[in-house]
């Protein structure tokens, strides 16, 4: 996970087809763009706009040994560990959510040394993506200094500032092999317009070497062009566009649906007693048995979906 040389980074970008072209494909086709062992960055944060449909497709496809990074990791981290899709996660916080307490699945895998949870501060994660997005090897920052987090972080360096003499931390750029980002809408070329909270997604898309977008709906390029100042991820960074309604269920998608709280409670219950067996049972029931994404949503249940949808519109009903 070292910092790329500038020439390597440029060569990787140049080798891509960055032209304005139709990139629409299925979840299964998009999953083939990810190779075991790669570094995959996940958009969204905690229980918001998590690219669950794409994670679901990758776990079903049997991808392994990914290094996964995200601002804050929720249940998808448990499932990546439990499925073997990843045994190395870089993030600032890892558990389903404060109200559910510490993740027992995360604990089981990390405390037994079978999986690694590499911790960085929240801002450090953000600035690592930002450095990657800007094409520079590092960003200077002023936190993490003096802490145990810094002692265990891989590759950060301190610098005596040549302008002020102050001690600064330089955090190394992240240029993930692939970023998976779920959006409210984009066109067939990958121009994405995000509403509400953008988290680290904009920097992540610019930093990554490939981007797979899942989207609640595909809109025309004409619609995008009517409000170009709303486009937050440009087509030129995007390699695949997959239309997946409720693509971040059971997490939320701003303005459309809130988290599926009962389902999240169900997951917590299933993993409460025997976390590993519970996670495996969850994977079997919700990831492997359904034959498609609609089947997955069906297992979560219609009533739950309608309730999340009703609550989700509240931001615009106010």
């Amino acid at each position, binding site marked *: 996970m070292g910092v790329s040389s500038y020439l390597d980074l440029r060569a990787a970008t140049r080798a891509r087809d960055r032209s304005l072209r139709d990139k629409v494909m299925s979840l299964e086709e998009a999953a083939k763009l990810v190779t075991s062992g790669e570094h995959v960055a996940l958009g969204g*944060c*905690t*229980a*918001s706009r998590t690219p669950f449909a794409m994670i679901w497709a990758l776990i079903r496809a049997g991808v392994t040994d990914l290094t996964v990074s995200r*601002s*804050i990791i929720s249940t998808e981290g448990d499932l990546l560990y439990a499925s073997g899709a990843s045994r190395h996660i870089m*993030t*600032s*916080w*890892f558990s389903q*959510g*404060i*109200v559910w307490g*510490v*993740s027992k699945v*995360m*604990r089981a895998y*990390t*405390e037994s*040394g079978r999986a690694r*949870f590499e*911790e960085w*501060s*929240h*801002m*450090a994660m*953000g*600035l690592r993506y*930002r450095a990657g997005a800007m094409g520079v090897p590092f960003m200077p920052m*002023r*936190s*993490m*200094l*003096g*802490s*145990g*987090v810094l002692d*265990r972080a891989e590759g950060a360096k*301190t610098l005596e500032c040549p302008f002020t003499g*102050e*001690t*600064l*931390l330089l955090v190394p750029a992240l240029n993930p092999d692939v970023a998976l980002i779920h959006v409210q809408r984009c066109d067939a070329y990958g121009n994405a317009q995000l509403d*509400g*909270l*953008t*988290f*680290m*997604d*904009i*920097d992540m898309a610019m930093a990554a070497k490939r981007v797979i977008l899942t989207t609640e709906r595909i809109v025309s390029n004409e619609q995008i062009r009517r409000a170009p100042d709303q486009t937050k991820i440009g087509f030129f960074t995007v390699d695949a566009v997959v239309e997946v309604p409720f693509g971040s269920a059971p997490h*939320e998608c*701003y*303005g459309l649906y*809130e*988290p599926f*709280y009962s389902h999240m409670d169900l997951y917590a219950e299933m993993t409460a007693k025997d976390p590993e067996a519970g996670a495996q049972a969850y994977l079997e029931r919700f990831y492997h048995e359904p034959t498609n994404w609609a089947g997955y949503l069906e297992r979560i249940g219609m009533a739950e979906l309608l309730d999340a949808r009703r609550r989700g519109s*509240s*931001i615009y009903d*106010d």
Partner: protein
Amino acid sequence: MTTDLAHAGLARADLGVAPAAPAHTASELLAVMSARLLREGQTVFAGVGIPLLAAILAQRTHAPGLTILFEGGVIGPFVEPGKLPPSTNEQRCTRRANMLVSITDVLLMLQRGYVDVGFMGGAQIDRYGNLNSSFIGDADAPKIRLPGTGGGNDIASLADMIVAMKHEKRRFVEKVDFVTSPGFLRGGSSRADAGLPAGGMFRVVTDLGILGFDPESRAMMVLALHPGVSAETIRAHTGFPLPVPDDVAVTEPPTAGELAILRELDPARLYTA
């Protein structure tokens, strides 16, 4: 210091016994006492749970112009009673906000110096205000792997901190197992020497009292006790020597009005049970 005490609704112990206070939980006590530390016009970076409840309580009492920030990228929201967000990163956090920005940018506001107070809960704290939310036991072979820093390290590195937590001996330790979020590190000037010249621990609010830090040694000390709490009690619940002044202040108990607001905000008692 006097101003701080007065502002925080503290009364000197020798001013007399406080009147009978309405019944309240320890969490409600934390929220009320923390809210009183916030001032009109300040900008507060708040975590969910007690910190958020306290910030909203302050907005609805003495600090209507308080600006709340969430690490999800939210500036100046008004959270709806009964719809407290499950984290600082969902749309519930954004209700009627003034501005939404990226996570990185809201954290950079902290670095730029736009945040007065960072406000969060704590799992384990030590004498110099260092906080641990990463590992119980040895980090290389932990007994418990905790969820980690989130924005905690950034907030504690860059803002004046208020920490609200239960006062238990296992939580108030001589030295934290792991410094997730820096307080004054090893005391004295060690925090500034590490490259953290700004911010630092301001107050620790517990169910037993309000604590501050000695300006020189940077060690924790008692500033005030809640009504009915003795110096012996608070010392007995603390895993390191804790100075308690002879004329230590006693806090004013939560008022019925303050408690009513908290109960309106969290009717299901998710955070205040």
